[in-house]
């Protein structure tokens, strides 16, 4: 029982990472109708920026600022590319996937080539301070708590933003029907850039939470999770924020349980087989999708 509870907490911590990233990923689907496969890579690159500033200045505020602004800049820089792709006639959402695949490859390779000699980066250990509470094997750390709380707050916040505010309505309007949105007089470019700005802001927060929870990052971190993020998003239903929350946490718990009770090397296979079965049975996702 003790082991089970400990693994459950670990699973929720892992799941909260997935939830955060899936939320960002779904946000891109909802506000821009693109599959942003490179989103996790943007987050990892922001972690690198945070680390670099922390190393040079040793100032936490500057580092946080650098992290968030890097993420925002990266997302806004990608906006013209994706806008051009979504504006093309006869080109569908696949093209955005392929283009972001290209971006992901470039970022990963540049990180492994030239940032920190390709070594993984590590945040100062004071960022990863010890446990908050511990009973035998059950242990809760600060990072875990932040990440879990952060992920739930992020989902709620973006749910509210998208479905309850005027700005969110504009985002969805543009994503759904660009022509109609123009007719209504929504300034397309401005709103579109703003939606990427929001996604970038979220990316920056994710990067900070991840650096608190993981304490380090490697060039391959983005690639490790990108595939799972896409899978979770599809299992939950593309663009379904609530589904992403549930499925992300479930994936984390499944992996932790598989690692703890079965075998570490097979844990990914266990979760992938489960996801594969769900996808094959319900191609539209468990929670339904708004994307046709």
């Amino acid at each position: 029982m003790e082991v089970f509870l400990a693994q459950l907490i670990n699973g929720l911590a892992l799941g909260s990472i997935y939830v955060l990233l899936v939320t960002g990923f779904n946000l891109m689907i909802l506000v821009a109708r693109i599959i942003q496969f490179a989103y996790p890579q943007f987050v990892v690159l922001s972690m690198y920026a945070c680390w670099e500033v922390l190393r040079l200045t040793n100032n936490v505020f500057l580092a946080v600022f650098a992290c968030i602004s890097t993420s925002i800049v990266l997302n806004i820089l990608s906006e013209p590319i994706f806008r051009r792709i979504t504006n093309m006639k006869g080109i569908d959402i696949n093209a955005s996937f392929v283009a972001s695949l290209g971006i992901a490859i470039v970022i990963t390779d540049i990180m492994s080539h030239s940032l920190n000699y390709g070594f993984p980066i590590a945040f100062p250990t004071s960022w990863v301070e010890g446990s908050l509470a511990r009973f035998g094997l059950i242990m809760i750390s600060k990072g875990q708590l932040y990440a879990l709380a952060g992920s739930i707050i992020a989902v709620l916040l973006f749910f509210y933003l998208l479905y309850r505010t005027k700005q969110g309505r504009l985002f969805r309007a543009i994503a759904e029907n660009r022509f109609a949105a123009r007719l209504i007089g929504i300034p397309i470019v401005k709103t579109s850039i703003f939606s990427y700005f929001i996604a970038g802001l979220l990316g920056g927060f994710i990067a900070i939470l991840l650096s608190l929870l993981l304490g380090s990052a490697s060039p391959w971190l983005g690639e490790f999770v990108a595939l799972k993020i896409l899978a979770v998003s599809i299992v939950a239903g593309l663009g379904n924020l609530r589904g992403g929350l549930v499925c992300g946490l479930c994936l984390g718990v499944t992996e932790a349980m598989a690692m703890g009770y079965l075998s570490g090397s097979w844990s990914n296979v266990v979760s992938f087989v489960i996801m594969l079965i769900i996808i094959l049975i319900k191609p539209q996702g468990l929670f339904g999708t708004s994307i046709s």
Partner: protein
Amino acid sequence: MPTVLSYFLGFTAIYILMCWAIYLPYRVGQLYFTTVACMAIVAYFSGFAAREWGWPFIFVLLVGIAIGAIIAYILSHAIGKAPCFTVVIVGLAFIFIVKTVIENWELLGGTVGFFGIPPVNNLLLIAYILLGIVGFVIYQIDHSRLGRAASVVFVDRDAAASLGVNIKSLGMFYQTIAGAIGGMAGVLYTFLLGSLSPEFFAFAMVGSLVCMLFVGGYTTMWGVIVSAPILGGIPILLPVTISSWRQVIYGILLVLIILVRPEGLITKRMLWNLKGKNRYKTASNLVNTRREKVG
């Protein structure tokens, strides 16, 4: 022939086959990466059969193609008409599962790899004959009723369904062929290298194949024939200072081509223009002819 040239030609043949295996299901709008998993399974199977059971090459080849086709056929029952991203994720997940199974299966050499596969004489010749046959078959498919049906499905699924196209069986057909080609590529790869490693069938492979397909052009089968030797040749021809950046080059090319020329270097229209304008009257051609009259 210099050793490096023979390997270059061999890899080119395999890349073209693999790109065709992705090109075919993309005719109906599905990015079908399961074919890479088929290739991995067949590659390991053929390596094992050749080394442990001593099967002759031709036999291994035929069985390999059959295995690839069977796997793809079984899966296609579930994803025959699935939307693109379901197909993508099924493919990627399947690659991942196959890779992990190989890595953890001691019989297959684990993460280190599988080695000592006996070489075959005249492999290059066989590879290019197979390439020719596959190319001929794909050409025939593209210029048949099936190919035209696929073009309609790619543009508009609902319209295709209303025209009486059975999308599911069309998807299943293309996926099965893709699986068979993947199996063929797997066998050739095994005997070309004489060794196998799970690293090869990984994400980087998907990246390079997608890059070759999209840079070359996904609307015709000829695009990859141009792009595969050029992109596959980057690591061989250029000095290491440049070629170690090949992934970056691939990535940037991929993004650029989608921005500048979304259908790739070689497009259907380009081929039509080469053949002469009168053979195909399309909307875009009519526009061109009208422009000439006006100008």
